[in-house]
């Protein structure tokens, strides 16, 4: 067991976890933040993407212990005072989600993409989301959602 202290969605968290606990399991099981999803077991699908110190990370590839001292944001931490994050708002406006399962990871990846590319082309958006699989939308409206949030992140 290892004791970790970190910030999750701006709240300080102190917990003892088994050494082999994945960050995604810690978020879902220990913190009951079930918006972060598990869609595969090979770090391919991106349903579990969160931000660790402002960068998108597949939380199934990281141990909770390695997040000691980190600042973690999950999908639950984006809405501020009842107002959706501009990327969340854009996904709603452009019908960028259907079943909603890949959505949290897709939104978290999109935010990182828009932070690192201020004015991405369609091609850059499509390449940038290559690590997130969606089975419902055919990606077209996800691309539109990201484009719709350019300049707002």
């Amino acid at each position, binding site marked *: 067991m290892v004791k970790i202290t970190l910030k999750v969605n701006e709240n300080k968290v102190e917990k003892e976890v088994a050494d082999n606990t994945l960050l995604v399991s810690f978020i*879902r099981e220990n913190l009951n*933040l*079930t*918006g*972060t*999803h*598990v*869609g*595969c*077991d*090979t770090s*391919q*699908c991106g*349903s579990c993407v969160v931000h660790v110190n402002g960068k998108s990370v597949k939380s199934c590839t990281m141990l909770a212990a390695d997040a000691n001292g980190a600042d973690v944001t*999950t*999908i*639950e931490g*984006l*809405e501020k005072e009842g107002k*959706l994050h501009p990327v*969340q708002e854009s*996904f*709603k*406006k452009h*019908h960028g*989600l*259907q*079943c*909603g*399962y*890949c*959505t*949290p990871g897709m*939104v978290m990846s999109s935010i990182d993409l828009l932070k690192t590319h201020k004015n991405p082309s*369609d*091609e850059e*958006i*499509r*390449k940038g*989301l*290559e690590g*997130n*699989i*969606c*089975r*419902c*939308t*055919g*990606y*077209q*409206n*996800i*691309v539109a959602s990201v484009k719709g949030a350019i300049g707002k992140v």
Partner: protein
Amino acid sequence: MASMIGSKVERKEDKKFLTGKGRYTADINLHNQLHAVFIRSPHARAKIKAIDTSKAKKAAGVVDVLTGKDMQDDKIGGLIAGWKIVSKDGTDMKCPAHPPLATDSVNYVGDHIALVVAETLQEAKDAADLVKVDYKVLKAVASTAEAMNSDVIHEGIEKNLCFDWELGDKVKTDEAFASADKVVEMDILNNRLVPNAMEPRASIGDYNPSSEELTLYTTSQNPHLSRLVMSAFNAVHPEHKFRVVAPDVGGGFGSKIYPYSEDVIMAWAAKRLQRPVKWVCERTESFLSDCHGRDHITNCSVALNNDGTVTGLKVDTIANLGGYASLFATVTPTYLYGPLVLGLYNIPTAYCNVKAVYTNTAPVDAYRGAGRPEATYLIERIMDKAAKELGMDRAEFRKKNFIRQFPHQQCLVHNIDSGDYDAHFDKALNLADYSGFEKRKAESAAKGKLRGIGFSTYIEACGIAPSAAVMSLGAGVGLWESAEIRFNPTGNISVFTGTHSHGQSHDTTFAQIVADKLGVPMENIELVHGDTDKGPFGMGTYGSRSLAVGGTAIAKACDKIVEKGKAVAANMLEAKADEIEFKDGEFIVPNTNKKKTIGEIAFACYLPGTYGEIKSPLPEGMEPGLKETAFYDPVNFSFPAGSHICEVEVDPTTGETKVDTYTCVDDFGNLINPMIVEGQIHGGLAQGIGQALYENAYYDETGQLVTASYMDYCMPRADNFPEFRIDYTCTPATSNPLGVKGCGEAGAIASPPAVMNAVVDAIGTEVTMPATAEKVWKALKEKSKSARKAA
């Protein structure tokens, strides 16, 4: 009030999903819950000699290890095939016993052997390693093509043949072929796919010993049917004390229509152990144990006149069912397939023979389109080949054979009520700039690239389904739909539907219908679905049926509300009920200023008396309350149709195919929410293009699934697609009052042949799906080798 029907309304369901508040089965944790892990067969075919659970049972945290013997002792029944197919010799289809946990044999890698139940998931996983199974491994039957000539998998089912079914007039079709100017023949392979909803399956059983109620939370497209099957056939629990809840479900695509072994087992285990039991599928486990799709081998031929008229069609298909016959497995390659092989062409005679075989692979069942993509693929591929052999333009050849009179009774099953195939085909040709193709081809050639164009036209039979028709064809249930409109006294509305939304946006689309019908704002309408304890019995979501059948049931329930409202309004306004007009949420006595809002009427219905100043008289003898139920059984299928055109560019040095443009013009009848319809098209296209270029479930000769993870099974990604060009034409359906036809499957049905016709056009030689870079490169090498030899 502006009409909501036809408006691009943003989705009501989005906020919860976007903020991480969706509640999927795996997100649910119950007090005192146990965790379950399956022991699955590592062999494709084996006899089980012994199962030793003694060590595992003693492991830390383990509560029990359950086997098929325990299920037998508790008299739990096996899984069923729900649609009886009769072979051409008049005998019924042959289905093996399908116990939820195997007892004496296993028939695919991933088949269920035992369940380890422990206090924590980790303890269950650790103990699973201690279960020892002694197998006698047998030679696997893994090939669809060879199944009929291989060892018999299930005792008594000769040639591994479930049924040998036929449709159409063989004699008349043989005559058409005998008198044809030309016959074109083709072998077609429809590759096996894994549906891959992003949410892996999960189930939680929860038994209440006090009330004797059993609840199953599960990833289902169809909770009422699951409960019915688990009560009536698996004998898990009586239906009236059994609740099945399908909360938010992360995609289905057909793979979550029916109860799986895991559902039966979680329900039974919770009852047996008197504690909640939770199972969540891992992705590789899901590759192994979810039902797969497609997997057909077909030989087909068309009879032609020299003028380009198609005079007959013959289809001979082997369809792989996998290790057992799953619930809708037998209808998928028969009635959802055979009648559709005609496409949207006026072909006077056809004969279709389907042999369904068992193999030692995961069961195959409905996957987006279910039968219709396989049918469309073969007719559209052979139409291309026929046009080329006749030396005709492929577009002209198609147009020459379109159905033009409606209603049209096909030579097989369907009576197509409406359509205008020239309209969407011409619009698509225009939108895709067909006339400019040669110029673009030359530009590609200048860059060293091979450009091809492919057409695909299709019809589907959706709005599944008229009960009388499907039950006469072997369905074990009718396929009507239910709805209930419950007006609450304060004027807002709960709408109950027997369909289930797992991405389809019912919360929004159905609310738009109710808003229009009753003149109530969208925000005052709440859709309730996915819980057998809440709404009336329904038949779930699949086959693009929810709007055409479920939406119509909702519209009909709204009509009943208005009917009652008119009687109440007439009484309150001292007018006659047949005088009252209802418009935009108000009951009006024409040519007067007398009116009541629907909210006032609802309130009156719940307060049928006088209280102070509030006076709410109901007509004498009328029951209080404002709640109406409607069950709708459609009079016919609906027939969406469309034309898709794909252009690809192939790099001959690598074999890589890039979809350069994709154009579709679809006729879905009336659209309720065009934004949502577009999303459905996009998703279907991605799955269909995925089938054509990337996806393949591959079993080796020993029956091991080689492609059992996202490392090996190529899921389409954002950078695999261009921006799709989408447009519509509209001939409203005449079979339902909304005039809607269904749009959920069209993209997956139409796109594989559009892409493959384009690839074959580009490279000038045949290649099977998926047309991966390696296969295309090899096909090009082979082609140039043969050309050199010929020279």
